[in-house]
């Protein structure tokens, strides 16, 4: 598990989501990256059930339950700004039992799917973010496997991102800032995906650009 940067790629002018994804993957192949299967990250939102809320009408915290095909045996449960729990996939069954406390928000499931590419020690995943039937955006994940401290290799990652994304290069993910020289963990990647999904949810739905 190396240091990972997840970012959103805006849809190219006059192109659909699908076309932009194709442009990106073509660029990767031109760089010399090799296709290595597919990936999927999904996220479901739960909110605390009304019965368990305090009488002052305080808003319930949102909890996100996520899966990452890179860790097929794990399930991640996160609060915004809060702790991240890494559990076995059985956790999903537990959530059904906890219906009285956590209720799944309707049609909240959001996921990104796409192809994995390997380039030297970099792992690049370009995915189409979908909510229900519609494509809502593009996610770009770049992982540098050999390094485990985010601040050590951010400049190096940035150089790769600049080569790959040009003017669309993102800034340093916020999780990097809080980590100092701690070892990067898979949970940090999930937090980045959660933030990305939340950002995309808030964005206006792209009018026509569905999957062709």
């Amino acid at each position, binding site marked *: *598990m190396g240091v990972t940067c997840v970012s959103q790629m805006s849809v190219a002018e006059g192109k659909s989501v699908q076309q932009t994804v194709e442009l990106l993957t073509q660029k990767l192949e031109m760089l*010399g990256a090799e296709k290595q299967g597919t990936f999927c990250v999904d996220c479901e939102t739960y909110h605390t059930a009304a019965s368990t809320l305090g009488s002052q009408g305080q808003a319930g915290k949102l909890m996100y339950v996520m899966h990452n095909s890179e860790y097929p045996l794990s399930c991640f449960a996160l609060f915004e700004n809060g702790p991240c729990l890494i559990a076995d996939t059985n956790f999903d069954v537990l959530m059904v039992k906890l219906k009285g406390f956590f209720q799944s928000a309707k049609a909240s499931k959001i996921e990104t799917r796409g192809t994995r590419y390997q380039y030297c020690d970099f792992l690049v995943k370009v995915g189409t973010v979908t909510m229900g039937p519609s494509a809502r955006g593009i996610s770009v994940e770049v992982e540098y496997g*050999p390094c485990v401290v985010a601040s050590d*290799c951010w400049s*190096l990652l940035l150089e*790769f991102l600049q080569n790959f994304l040009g003017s669309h290069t993102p800034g340093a993910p916020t999780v990097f800032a809080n980590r100092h020289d701690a070892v990067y963990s898979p949970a940090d990647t999930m937090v980045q995906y959660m933030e990305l999904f939340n950002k995309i949810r808030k964005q206006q739905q792209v009018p026509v650009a569905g999957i062709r």
Partner: protein
Amino acid sequence: MADVLSVGVNLEAFAQAISAIQALRSSVSRVFDCLKDGMRNKETLEGREKAFIAHFQDNLHSVNRDLNELERLSNLVGKPSENHPLHNSGLLSLDPVQDKTPLYSQLLQAYKWSNKLQYHAGLASGLLNQQSLKRSANQMGVSAKRRPKAQPTTLVLPPQYVDDVISRIDRMFPEMSIHLSRPNGTSAMLLVTLGKVLKVIVVMRSLFIDRTIVKGYTENVYTEDGKLDIWSKSNYQVFQKVTDHATTALLHYQLPQMPDVVVRSFMTWLRSYIKLFQAPCQRCGKFLQDGLPPTWRDFRTLEAFHDTCRQ
């Protein structure tokens, strides 16, 4: 054509000289034929003598003529250039079809290599002589108990001394931790952890480093039965590259008389990888080249370079 030939030797004169030599040889053999046949087939003794002398004279004249001719031609042939460092093989450099048959450059290369080989073989033989084990020779007729202690000093340093040297190095570099173990008898194995960047397995023989393998900080360095895994390589290309360079460094840092200095120099060099992912290349100024960070560290200055950016 004429231009090319005039550089070295006059080929036309050469061909003529060769035929002149042939003519000379045949006229000389005619002389001996005539001497061998002697005097015959004439009625009178005087007639026989006269004919023989005339014949002999003719033959000698033609020898003389052919010899003069050869002498004249040999002046035309010209001399091959003499001051070439590789003597006559230097003429290969005059080959006009250099691109197709780069014989001369290959020859120079081979010459350089053989020189280097000789030099290194000299060093190696010096080292080996100094540490001659002569195991098989000594074992003959000597019981295992009374085996003579004729072993070289640098190979039989007491383990305690090795431990001391290593722990002193360990204290020298705070960001580097060295764990020493002896899973296979007296030879030490080190597991060096450099910051949160990489781990190095170092296989020692006394105070000589036999082998090093560099792996990632989170990569597994143990085999299933809990021993240090000294055979498998890293899954990451960057550490495979660093392993190669570390092996080169082992060959570079050689000082048979002072093995502890060698280990210290090697560890000092290794420590410069603490900035493996943070130091841009000192030549091209970039972090990445073909997906790899600058994996080379200069042996003297410890500056970072890409493998292809170093001299």
